[in-house]
C-alpha cells in the first residue's frame, strides 16, 4: 500500500466517521412512556345538563421519537389501558367499562398514533405544535389534530429516578382536547342528558430516554 492509498483510506474513514457522528447526534431520541412512578395520567370530563362525570386513567405506555433540534419530525404512539379508566362511583365505573359504553374486555386499549406536526413553535425549553394523528377508540379510528406542548428536560432522568448515576433525558407532553363519543361508537346519541357527547381529555405524561 503506497502513501496515496493510505491517505485516501484515512480521509474516507474520517468522512465516514464524521457522517455517522452527525447522524447519531441528529437522530431523534426514543422516549419510553411506561411510567414506573405512576405520574402519567389522563383526566377526562363529561359535562352533561344533568350530570358531570370526571375521572382519570393512569395505564399509559408508548414511545415517542423526538429530536429537540428538529421537533417537526416527531412521531410516536401513546397507548392507554382502558381498564385503568376510573371514576369516583364504583357502579358508574362498572357501566363505563361495560359492553354498552367502552367495552374494555373487547377493546382493551385506546391508542393515538402521531403522524405529523404543524405550526411548530419553540418557546425556551418548550415546543408547541399541532399534532395530527390517528386516534383509535372502541375499534373506531379517526384522524384528529391535538395541540401538544413538548417540554424537553435534558439530563433530568437521574434526578427523577433519584439516582444521579442514571443518565438520560425526559420529555413531558401536555395536551387538552375534545372528542365526540358518538364519533367513536360510544352509545351514539344516547343518554346525552346525563352523559355528555363531548369528552374533554387532559393529558400530562413524561417519557424517559436513558443514555449509556
Amino acid at each position, binding site marked *: 500500500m503506497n502513501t496515496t492509498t493510505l491517505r485516501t483510506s484515512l480521509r474516507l474513514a474520517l468522512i465516514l466517521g464524521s457522517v455517522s457522528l452527525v447522524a447519531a447526534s441528529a437522530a431523534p431520541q426514543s422516549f419510553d412512556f411506561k411510567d414506573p412512578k405512576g405520574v402519567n*395520567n389522563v383526566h377526562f370530563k363529561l359535562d352533561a345538563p344533568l350530570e358531570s362525570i370526571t375521572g382519570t386513567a*393512569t395505564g399509559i405506555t408508548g414511545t415517542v421519537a423526538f429530536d429537540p433540534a428538529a421537533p417537526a419530525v416527531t412521531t410516536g404512539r401513546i397507548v392507554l389501558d382502558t381498564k385503568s379508566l376510573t371514576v*369516583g*362511583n364504583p357502579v358508574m365505573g362498572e357501566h363505563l367499562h361495560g359492553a354498552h359504553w367502552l367495552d374494555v374486555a373487547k377493546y382493551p386499549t385506546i391508542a393515538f398514533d402521531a403522524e405529523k406536526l404543524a405550526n411548530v413553535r419553540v418557546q425556551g425549553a418548550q415546543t408547541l405544535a399541532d399534532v395530527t394523528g390517528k386516534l383509535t377508540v372502541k375499534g373506531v379510528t379517526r384522524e384528529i389534530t391535538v395541540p401538544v406542548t413538548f*417540554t424537553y*428536560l435534558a439530563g433530568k432522568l437521574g434526578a427523577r429516578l433519584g439516582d444521579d448515576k442514571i443518565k438520560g433525558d*425526559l420529555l*413531558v407532553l401536555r395536551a387538552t382536547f375534545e372528542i365526540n363519543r358518538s364519533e367513536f361508537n360510544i352509545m351514539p346519541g344516547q343518554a346525552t342528558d346525563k352523559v355528555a357527547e363531548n369528552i374533554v381529555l387532559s393529558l*400530562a405524561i413524561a417519557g424517559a430516554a436513558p443514555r449509556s
Partner: protein
Amino acid sequence: MNTASRLTFTLRLTSIAALLATLGLWLATGAHLGWTRTSKVIVRHDEITGIDFPVREKTFVAGVEILAAGTAFAAALAGTSLLSSRRRAVRA
C-alpha cells in the same frame, strides 16, 4: 300497652331512627349532592416533570341515593305504623 300499640310504637321509633341515621350519615360524609363515592382523588405534584397527578384514595361519601333510600325506608315504616293504628281504631 298491648301488642298492637307496641308494634306501632316500635315502627315509629325505627322510622325516626332510620331517618336520623341516614341524614346523619349523609351530613357526616359531606352532604354530597351526587352519587355515592367509594374513593376520592388527591392531586400531587411531581417536582421534576411539573406534572400534577391524581392519587386515588379509598373513602366513603354517601350520595343522594343513600339519602333517598333511607328516607323511603323511614317513610315506609311510618306509613305502616299509621295503617296499623288506623286498623286498631276501626276495630275499636
